[in-house]
Protein backbone atom coordinates (compact mmCIF):
# COMPACT_ATOMS: atom_id res chain seq x y z
CA UNK A 1 0.00 0.00 0.00
CA UNK A 2 1.26 3.50 -0.75
CA UNK A 3 -0.09 6.80 0.36
CA UNK A 4 0.03 10.16 -1.32
CA UNK A 5 1.68 12.83 0.78
CA UNK A 6 -0.75 15.55 1.68
CA UNK A 7 0.41 18.99 0.61
CA UNK A 8 1.73 21.00 3.56
CA UNK A 9 -0.98 23.02 5.17
CA UNK A 10 -0.88 26.69 4.35
CA UNK A 11 -0.95 28.99 7.35
CA UNK A 12 -4.47 29.82 8.43
CA UNK A 13 -5.62 33.02 6.72
CA UNK A 14 -5.02 36.10 8.77
CA UNK A 15 -8.22 37.43 10.32
CA UNK A 16 -9.42 40.90 9.45
CA UNK A 17 -7.67 43.85 11.03
CA UNK A 18 -10.12 46.67 11.50
CA UNK A 19 -7.89 49.35 12.94
CA UNK A 20 -4.18 50.00 12.32
CA UNK A 21 -3.90 51.05 15.95
CA UNK A 22 -4.37 47.38 16.83
CA UNK A 23 -1.56 46.24 14.53
CA UNK A 24 1.25 45.80 17.11
CA UNK A 25 -0.84 43.42 19.23
CA UNK A 26 -2.28 41.76 16.12
CA UNK A 27 1.23 41.02 14.75
CA UNK A 28 2.29 39.48 18.05
CA UNK A 29 -0.94 37.52 18.52
CA UNK A 30 -0.67 35.93 15.08
CA UNK A 31 3.03 35.14 15.32
CA UNK A 32 4.10 37.54 12.58
CA UNK A 33 7.08 38.77 14.57
CA UNK A 34 9.61 37.35 16.99
CA UNK A 35 8.69 39.81 19.68
CA UNK A 36 9.98 43.12 18.39
CA UNK A 37 7.48 45.56 16.93
CA UNK A 38 7.04 45.66 13.16
CA UNK A 39 5.36 47.82 10.55
CA UNK A 40 2.17 46.57 8.85
CA UNK A 41 2.79 45.08 5.38
CA UNK A 42 0.19 47.08 3.51
CA UNK A 43 -0.23 46.37 -0.23
CA UNK A 44 0.91 49.86 -1.19
CA UNK A 45 4.18 49.66 0.70
CA UNK A 46 4.86 46.12 -0.47
CA UNK A 47 4.15 47.09 -4.07
CA UNK A 48 6.59 49.98 -3.78
CA UNK A 49 9.41 47.62 -2.87
CA UNK A 50 8.46 45.13 -5.57
CA UNK A 51 8.50 47.90 -8.14
CA UNK A 52 11.86 49.13 -6.89
CA UNK A 53 13.33 45.67 -7.36
CA UNK A 54 12.49 45.68 -11.06
CA UNK A 55 11.35 42.09 -10.74
CA UNK A 56 7.87 40.54 -10.85
CA UNK A 57 6.26 40.09 -7.47
CA UNK A 58 5.68 36.41 -8.12
CA UNK A 59 9.30 35.71 -9.09
CA UNK A 60 10.43 32.82 -6.90
CA UNK A 61 13.70 32.96 -4.94
CA UNK A 62 13.23 29.56 -3.32
CA UNK A 63 11.72 27.75 -0.36
CA UNK A 64 12.83 28.97 3.05
CA UNK A 65 13.51 26.06 5.38
CA UNK A 66 12.48 24.48 7.62
CA UNK A 67 8.82 25.38 6.88
CA UNK A 68 9.71 25.51 3.18
CA UNK A 69 7.30 28.31 2.38
CA UNK A 70 7.99 29.97 -0.93
CA UNK A 71 9.96 33.20 -0.92
CA UNK A 72 8.77 35.35 -3.79
CA UNK A 73 9.84 38.91 -4.38
CA UNK A 74 6.47 39.94 -2.95
CA UNK A 75 6.62 37.85 0.22
CA UNK A 76 10.17 38.97 0.87
CA UNK A 77 8.99 42.54 0.29
CA UNK A 78 6.20 42.06 2.84
CA UNK A 79 8.76 41.07 5.46
CA UNK A 80 11.05 43.89 4.40
CA UNK A 81 8.23 46.39 4.84
CA UNK A 82 7.65 45.02 8.33
CA UNK A 83 11.32 45.70 9.08
CA UNK A 84 11.17 49.24 7.73
CA UNK A 85 13.27 48.60 4.62
CA UNK A 86 13.17 51.37 2.07
CA UNK A 87 12.95 50.95 -1.68
CA UNK A 88 16.64 51.66 -2.25
CA UNK A 89 17.65 49.11 0.39
CA UNK A 90 15.42 46.31 -0.86
CA UNK A 91 17.74 44.91 -3.58
CA UNK A 92 20.28 44.23 -0.81
CA UNK A 93 17.68 42.12 1.01
CA UNK A 94 16.94 40.12 -2.14
CA UNK A 95 20.64 39.45 -2.74
CA UNK A 96 21.06 38.27 0.85
CA UNK A 97 18.07 35.92 0.64
CA UNK A 98 19.47 34.52 -2.59
CA UNK A 99 22.85 33.99 -0.93
CA UNK A 100 21.32 32.23 2.07
CA UNK A 101 19.58 29.78 -0.26
CA UNK A 102 22.92 28.62 -1.66
CA UNK A 103 23.59 25.02 -0.64
CA UNK A 104 26.93 25.98 0.92
CA UNK A 105 25.10 28.06 3.49
CA UNK A 106 22.95 25.09 4.59
CA UNK A 107 20.13 27.34 5.71
CA UNK A 108 18.03 24.42 6.97
CA UNK A 109 20.79 23.53 9.38
CA UNK A 110 21.53 27.13 10.34
CA UNK A 111 17.86 27.63 11.17
CA UNK A 112 17.41 24.57 13.34
CA UNK A 113 20.80 23.74 14.89
CA UNK A 114 21.46 23.63 18.60
CA UNK A 115 24.47 25.86 17.94
CA UNK A 116 24.30 29.61 18.37
CA UNK A 117 25.28 30.66 14.87
CA UNK A 118 23.12 33.21 13.11
CA UNK A 119 23.31 34.89 9.71
CA UNK A 120 25.76 37.77 9.59
CA UNK A 121 25.24 39.96 6.54
CA UNK A 122 28.28 41.83 5.22
CA UNK A 123 27.52 44.52 2.64
CA UNK A 124 30.34 45.64 0.35
CA UNK A 125 30.77 48.20 -2.40
CA UNK A 126 29.72 51.78 -3.04
CA UNK A 127 26.24 51.20 -1.62
CA UNK A 128 27.74 50.91 1.87
CA UNK A 129 28.38 54.65 1.97
CA UNK A 130 25.48 55.62 -0.29
CA UNK A 131 22.86 53.84 1.83
CA UNK A 132 24.59 54.33 5.15
CA UNK A 133 25.33 50.78 6.29
CA UNK A 134 27.09 50.51 9.64
CA UNK A 135 30.89 50.71 9.40
CA UNK A 136 31.90 52.69 12.46
CA UNK A 137 31.24 52.65 16.19
CA UNK A 138 28.98 49.81 17.41
CA UNK A 139 29.13 48.24 13.97
CA UNK A 140 27.96 44.81 15.17
CA UNK A 141 25.11 46.12 17.25
CA UNK A 142 23.32 49.33 17.96
CA UNK A 143 25.07 51.29 15.25
CA UNK A 144 22.24 53.76 14.65
CA UNK A 145 22.39 52.76 10.98
CA UNK A 146 18.88 52.40 9.66
CA UNK A 147 20.13 50.50 6.61
CA UNK A 148 21.89 47.88 8.72
CA UNK A 149 19.11 47.51 11.25
CA UNK A 150 16.36 47.33 8.63
CA UNK A 151 18.13 44.90 6.29
CA UNK A 152 19.18 42.69 9.19
CA UNK A 153 15.65 42.67 10.58
CA UNK A 154 14.14 41.97 7.16
CA UNK A 155 16.22 38.82 6.82
CA UNK A 156 15.29 37.76 10.32
CA UNK A 157 11.60 38.18 9.51
CA UNK A 158 12.01 36.23 6.25
CA UNK A 159 13.51 33.38 8.26
CA UNK A 160 10.77 33.74 10.87
CA UNK A 161 7.67 34.08 8.71
CA UNK A 162 8.63 32.11 5.60
CA UNK A 163 11.00 29.71 7.32
CA UNK A 164 8.88 29.13 10.41
CA UNK A 165 11.96 29.45 12.63
CA UNK A 166 10.21 29.27 15.98
CA UNK A 167 12.38 28.48 19.02
CA UNK A 168 11.62 25.11 20.57
CA UNK A 169 9.98 23.56 17.56
CA UNK A 170 11.67 23.35 15.11
CA UNK A 171 14.56 25.60 16.21
CA UNK A 172 16.77 23.81 18.74
CA UNK A 173 19.30 26.58 19.35
CA UNK A 174 20.37 26.14 22.97
CA UNK A 175 21.47 29.69 23.78
CA UNK A 176 21.65 31.82 20.65
CA UNK A 177 22.73 35.43 20.82
CA UNK A 178 21.16 38.85 20.26
CA UNK A 179 22.61 38.98 16.76
CA UNK A 180 19.95 36.57 15.56
CA UNK A 181 17.53 39.47 15.79
CA UNK A 182 19.40 40.87 12.79
CA UNK A 183 23.08 41.48 12.08
CA UNK A 184 24.13 43.50 9.07
CA UNK A 185 27.45 45.33 8.80
CA UNK A 186 29.12 47.35 6.10
CA UNK A 187 32.61 46.62 4.85
CA UNK A 188 35.00 49.53 4.53
CA UNK A 189 36.79 49.75 1.22
CA UNK A 190 38.43 53.16 0.98
CA UNK A 191 39.80 53.03 4.52
CA UNK A 192 41.02 49.45 4.14
CA UNK A 193 44.38 48.43 2.68
CA UNK A 194 43.13 45.10 1.32
CA UNK A 195 40.52 43.79 -1.12
CA UNK A 196 37.09 43.30 0.43
CA UNK A 197 35.61 39.99 1.54
CA UNK A 198 33.17 40.22 -1.35
CA UNK A 199 36.02 40.66 -3.85
CA UNK A 200 37.87 37.75 -2.31
CA UNK A 201 34.70 35.71 -2.84
CA UNK A 202 34.46 36.63 -6.52
CA UNK A 203 32.53 39.89 -6.65
CA UNK A 204 33.81 42.36 -9.20
CA UNK A 205 35.83 45.19 -7.65
CA UNK A 206 33.70 48.26 -7.11
CA UNK A 207 30.44 46.36 -7.41
CA UNK A 208 27.85 46.19 -4.66
CA UNK A 209 27.68 42.77 -3.08
CA UNK A 210 26.35 40.94 -0.06
CA UNK A 211 28.05 38.11 1.81
CA UNK A 212 26.18 35.96 4.30
CA UNK A 213 27.97 33.89 6.91
CA UNK A 214 26.57 32.03 9.93
CA UNK A 215 28.56 33.10 12.94
CA UNK A 216 28.51 33.54 16.65
CA UNK A 217 28.45 36.94 18.31
CA UNK A 218 31.51 39.11 17.77
CA UNK A 219 34.16 38.49 20.42
CA UNK A 220 36.51 41.34 21.23
CA UNK A 221 40.26 41.08 20.69
CA UNK A 222 42.09 44.01 22.28
CA UNK A 223 45.84 44.23 21.91
CA UNK A 224 46.70 44.57 25.58
CA UNK A 225 50.42 44.55 26.09
CA UNK A 226 51.14 43.72 22.48
CA UNK A 227 54.21 44.91 20.62
CA UNK A 228 54.07 46.09 17.03
CA UNK A 229 55.14 42.73 15.67
CA UNK A 230 52.31 41.53 13.40
CA UNK A 231 52.73 37.88 14.32
CA UNK A 232 52.43 38.62 18.00
CA UNK A 233 49.34 40.74 17.43
CA UNK A 234 47.74 38.10 15.24
CA UNK A 235 48.48 35.45 17.87
CA UNK A 236 45.99 37.19 20.15
CA UNK A 237 43.31 36.90 17.50
CA UNK A 238 44.31 33.28 16.90
CA UNK A 239 43.87 32.53 20.59
CA UNK A 240 40.25 33.67 20.46
CA UNK A 241 39.65 31.85 17.16
CA UNK A 242 40.85 28.57 18.66
CA UNK A 243 38.93 28.73 21.92
CA UNK A 244 38.53 25.20 23.23
CA UNK A 245 34.75 25.36 23.38
CA UNK A 246 33.85 26.52 19.91
CA UNK A 247 32.90 24.43 16.89
CA UNK A 248 35.73 25.69 14.68
CA UNK A 249 38.39 24.41 17.02
CA UNK A 250 37.07 20.84 16.78
CA UNK A 251 35.71 20.68 13.25
CA UNK A 252 37.37 23.55 11.30
CA UNK A 253 35.06 25.39 8.85
CA UNK A 254 35.23 29.18 8.55
CA UNK A 255 35.71 32.08 10.96
CA UNK A 256 35.08 35.78 10.40
CA UNK A 257 37.77 38.15 11.67
CA UNK A 258 37.05 41.88 11.64
CA UNK A 259 39.84 44.42 11.84
CA UNK A 260 39.43 48.08 12.57
CA UNK A 261 40.94 50.28 9.86
CA UNK A 262 43.77 51.27 12.23
CA UNK A 263 44.82 47.68 12.86
CA UNK A 264 44.49 46.76 9.20
CA UNK A 265 46.69 49.69 8.23
CA UNK A 266 49.23 48.70 10.86
CA UNK A 267 49.46 45.17 9.50
CA UNK A 268 49.57 46.40 5.90
CA UNK A 269 52.32 48.88 6.75
CA UNK A 270 54.32 45.95 8.11
CA UNK A 271 53.99 44.34 4.69
CA UNK A 272 51.13 41.93 5.26
CA UNK A 273 48.63 41.40 2.49
CA UNK A 274 45.15 40.02 3.13
CA UNK A 275 46.45 36.59 2.14
CA UNK A 276 49.39 36.96 4.53
CA UNK A 277 47.00 37.69 7.38
CA UNK A 278 44.90 34.68 6.49
CA UNK A 279 47.93 32.39 6.26
CA UNK A 280 49.38 33.60 9.53
CA UNK A 281 46.10 33.11 11.38
CA UNK A 282 45.74 29.66 9.81
CA UNK A 283 49.19 28.77 11.12
CA UNK A 284 48.68 30.25 14.58
CA UNK A 285 45.09 29.31 15.42
CA UNK A 286 45.75 25.67 16.31
CA UNK A 287 45.40 23.27 19.21
CA UNK A 288 47.24 20.08 20.05
CA UNK A 289 45.31 16.92 19.28
CA UNK A 290 45.58 15.63 22.84
CA UNK A 291 44.03 18.85 24.08
CA UNK A 292 41.16 18.67 21.60
CA UNK A 293 40.51 14.98 22.18
CA UNK A 294 42.05 13.93 25.47
CA UNK A 295 42.34 10.24 26.27
CA UNK A 296 39.67 8.87 28.58
CA UNK A 297 37.74 5.72 29.48
CA UNK A 298 35.76 5.70 26.25
CA UNK A 299 38.69 6.77 24.08
CA UNK A 300 41.85 5.51 25.72
CA UNK A 301 44.16 5.82 22.73
CA UNK A 302 44.54 7.18 19.24
CA UNK A 303 43.06 4.14 17.55
CA UNK A 304 41.65 4.94 14.09
CA UNK A 305 38.22 3.94 15.40
CA UNK A 306 38.21 7.23 17.29
CA UNK A 307 39.42 9.42 14.45
CA UNK A 308 37.31 12.37 13.42
CA UNK A 309 36.42 11.75 9.80
CA UNK A 310 35.56 15.40 9.22
CA UNK A 311 39.22 16.34 9.47
CA UNK A 312 41.25 16.13 6.26
CA UNK A 313 43.80 13.36 5.77
CA UNK A 314 46.74 15.71 6.32
CA UNK A 315 45.82 15.99 10.00
CA UNK A 316 47.89 13.24 11.63
CA UNK A 317 45.46 11.85 14.20
CA UNK A 318 47.92 9.25 15.48
CA UNK A 319 50.12 11.81 17.24
CA UNK A 320 49.09 13.62 20.41
CA UNK A 321 51.24 16.61 19.51
CA UNK A 322 49.66 17.24 16.11
CA UNK A 323 48.64 20.87 15.85
CA UNK A 324 45.14 20.99 14.37
CA UNK A 325 44.06 24.26 12.72
CA UNK A 326 40.70 25.69 13.67
CA UNK A 327 39.69 26.53 10.12
CA UNK A 328 39.78 24.47 6.95
CA UNK A 329 42.22 26.62 5.00
CA UNK A 330 43.79 30.09 5.03
CA UNK A 331 40.93 31.27 2.83
CA UNK A 332 38.51 30.12 5.52
CA UNK A 333 39.59 33.11 7.60
CA UNK A 334 37.05 35.68 6.42
CA UNK A 335 38.87 38.99 6.77
CA UNK A 336 36.69 42.10 6.98
CA UNK A 337 37.74 45.68 7.68
CA UNK A 338 35.09 47.65 9.54
CA UNK A 339 34.42 49.36 12.85
CA UNK A 340 35.47 52.63 14.42
CA UNK A 341 38.43 54.26 12.70
CA UNK A 342 39.99 55.17 16.01
CA UNK A 343 42.23 52.60 17.69
CA UNK A 344 43.60 49.18 16.72
CA UNK A 345 41.16 46.42 17.59
CA UNK A 346 39.79 43.18 16.18
CA UNK A 347 36.75 40.97 16.60
CA UNK A 348 36.23 37.27 15.97
CA UNK A 349 32.95 35.64 14.95
CA UNK A 350 33.44 31.88 15.16
CA UNK A 351 31.42 29.88 12.66
CA UNK A 352 29.37 26.71 12.85
CA UNK A 353 32.41 24.57 12.13
CA UNK A 354 32.33 22.13 9.24
CA UNK A 355 28.56 21.88 9.43
CA UNK A 356 27.66 24.77 7.13
CA UNK A 357 26.87 28.43 7.26
CA UNK A 358 29.80 29.03 4.91
CA UNK A 359 30.25 32.47 3.40
CA UNK A 360 28.29 33.00 0.20
CA UNK A 361 28.54 36.22 -1.83
CA UNK A 362 26.04 37.64 -4.29
CA UNK A 363 26.29 40.86 -6.24
CA UNK A 364 23.34 43.19 -5.70
CA UNK A 365 21.07 43.54 -8.73
CA UNK A 366 19.85 47.11 -8.88
Amino acid sequence: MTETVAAPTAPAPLPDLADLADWPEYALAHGLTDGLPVYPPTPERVAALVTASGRPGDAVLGAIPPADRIATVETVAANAVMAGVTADQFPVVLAAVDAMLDDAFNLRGVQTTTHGCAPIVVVSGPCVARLGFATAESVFGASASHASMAVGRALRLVLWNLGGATPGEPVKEVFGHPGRLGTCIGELADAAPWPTLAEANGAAPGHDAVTVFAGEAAQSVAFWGAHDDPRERLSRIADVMAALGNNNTHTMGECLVAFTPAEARHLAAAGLSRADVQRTLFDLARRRLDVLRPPGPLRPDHDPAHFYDWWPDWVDQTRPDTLVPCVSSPESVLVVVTGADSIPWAAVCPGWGHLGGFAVTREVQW
Partner: protein
Amino acid sequence: MVIELVDPRGRPADVSGARLAVRPATPVRLGFLVNEPGRVAGPSFGRYAEVLDGWLRDRFAITAPAVTGFKPVLSRRADADLLDRYSECSAVVNGLAK
Protein backbone atom coordinates in the same frame (compact mmCIF):
# COMPACT_ATOMS: atom_id res chain seq x y z
CA MET B 1 -13.33 49.07 7.39
CA VAL B 2 -10.78 46.29 6.97
CA ILE B 3 -7.07 47.02 6.68
CA GLU B 4 -5.59 45.12 3.75
CA LEU B 5 -2.34 43.29 4.45
CA VAL B 6 0.07 41.16 2.44
CA ASP B 7 0.55 37.91 4.34
CA PRO B 8 4.30 37.67 5.05
CA ARG B 9 4.10 33.90 5.60
CA GLY B 10 3.68 33.03 1.92
CA ARG B 11 2.50 29.64 0.78
CA PRO B 12 4.03 26.21 1.32
CA ALA B 13 6.12 24.46 -1.29
CA ASP B 14 4.05 22.09 -3.41
CA VAL B 15 4.92 18.47 -2.69
CA SER B 16 1.66 16.96 -3.92
CA GLY B 17 2.32 13.82 -5.88
CA ALA B 18 5.18 12.72 -3.66
CA ARG B 19 4.61 9.26 -2.25
CA LEU B 20 5.26 7.68 1.09
CA ALA B 21 7.06 4.36 1.17
CA VAL B 22 5.14 1.20 1.92
CA ARG B 23 4.49 0.79 5.63
CA PRO B 24 3.27 -2.70 6.56
CA ALA B 25 1.09 -2.98 9.64
CA THR B 26 3.55 -5.35 11.33
CA PRO B 27 7.19 -4.30 11.41
CA VAL B 28 9.35 -6.53 9.22
CA ARG B 29 12.58 -4.59 8.94
CA LEU B 30 14.18 -1.90 11.08
CA GLY B 31 16.47 0.90 10.07
CA PHE B 32 18.94 2.91 12.09
CA LEU B 33 20.27 6.13 10.67
CA VAL B 34 23.05 7.82 12.60
CA ASN B 35 23.55 11.54 12.23
CA GLU B 36 27.21 11.59 13.13
CA PRO B 37 29.69 8.91 12.22
CA GLY B 38 32.41 9.99 14.62
CA ARG B 39 32.54 9.52 18.34
CA VAL B 40 32.41 13.08 19.52
CA ALA B 41 31.81 12.62 23.21
CA GLY B 42 30.87 9.07 24.06
CA PRO B 43 29.92 5.64 22.77
CA SER B 44 27.47 7.33 20.41
CA PHE B 45 24.29 6.12 18.84
CA GLY B 46 25.82 2.89 17.59
CA ARG B 47 25.67 1.17 20.96
CA TYR B 48 22.19 2.51 21.67
CA ALA B 49 21.03 1.18 18.30
CA GLU B 50 22.35 -2.30 19.10
CA VAL B 51 20.34 -2.42 22.32
CA LEU B 52 17.22 -1.00 20.73
CA ASP B 53 17.51 -3.36 17.76
CA GLY B 54 17.59 -6.38 20.07
CA TRP B 55 14.67 -5.15 22.10
CA LEU B 56 12.48 -4.45 19.04
CA ARG B 57 13.38 -7.79 17.46
CA ASP B 58 12.22 -9.62 20.55
CA ARG B 59 9.05 -7.65 20.88
CA PHE B 60 7.93 -7.80 17.23
CA ALA B 61 9.59 -11.09 16.19
CA ILE B 62 11.57 -9.36 13.47
CA THR B 63 14.03 -11.61 11.66
CA ALA B 64 15.17 -9.49 8.71
CA PRO B 65 18.54 -7.78 9.16
CA ALA B 66 18.40 -4.13 10.09
CA VAL B 67 19.53 -1.43 7.69
CA THR B 68 22.18 0.79 9.22
CA GLY B 69 23.97 3.84 7.91
CA PHE B 70 25.14 7.30 8.75
CA LYS B 71 24.98 10.71 7.18
CA PRO B 72 28.33 12.04 5.94
CA VAL B 73 27.61 15.42 7.51
CA LEU B 74 25.25 15.49 10.45
CA SER B 75 23.90 18.94 9.71
CA ARG B 76 22.64 18.08 6.25
CA ARG B 77 19.74 16.03 5.00
CA ALA B 78 20.45 12.46 3.97
CA ASP B 79 20.73 12.27 0.21
CA ALA B 80 18.35 10.27 -1.96
CA ASP B 81 20.70 7.30 -2.39
CA LEU B 82 21.06 6.92 1.35
CA LEU B 83 17.32 7.25 1.93
CA ASP B 84 16.64 4.64 -0.78
CA ARG B 85 18.47 2.09 1.35
CA TYR B 86 15.76 2.51 3.95
CA SER B 87 12.83 2.23 1.55
CA GLU B 88 11.91 -1.29 2.72
CA CYS B 89 12.09 -0.49 6.41
CA SER B 90 8.94 -0.51 8.48
CA ALA B 91 10.45 1.97 10.90
CA VAL B 92 13.63 4.01 10.95
CA VAL B 93 15.23 5.28 14.14
CA ASN B 94 17.31 8.39 13.62
CA GLY B 95 20.06 9.14 16.09
CA LEU B 96 20.15 12.90 16.28
CA ALA B 97 23.24 13.76 18.25
CA LYS B 98 25.79 12.61 20.77
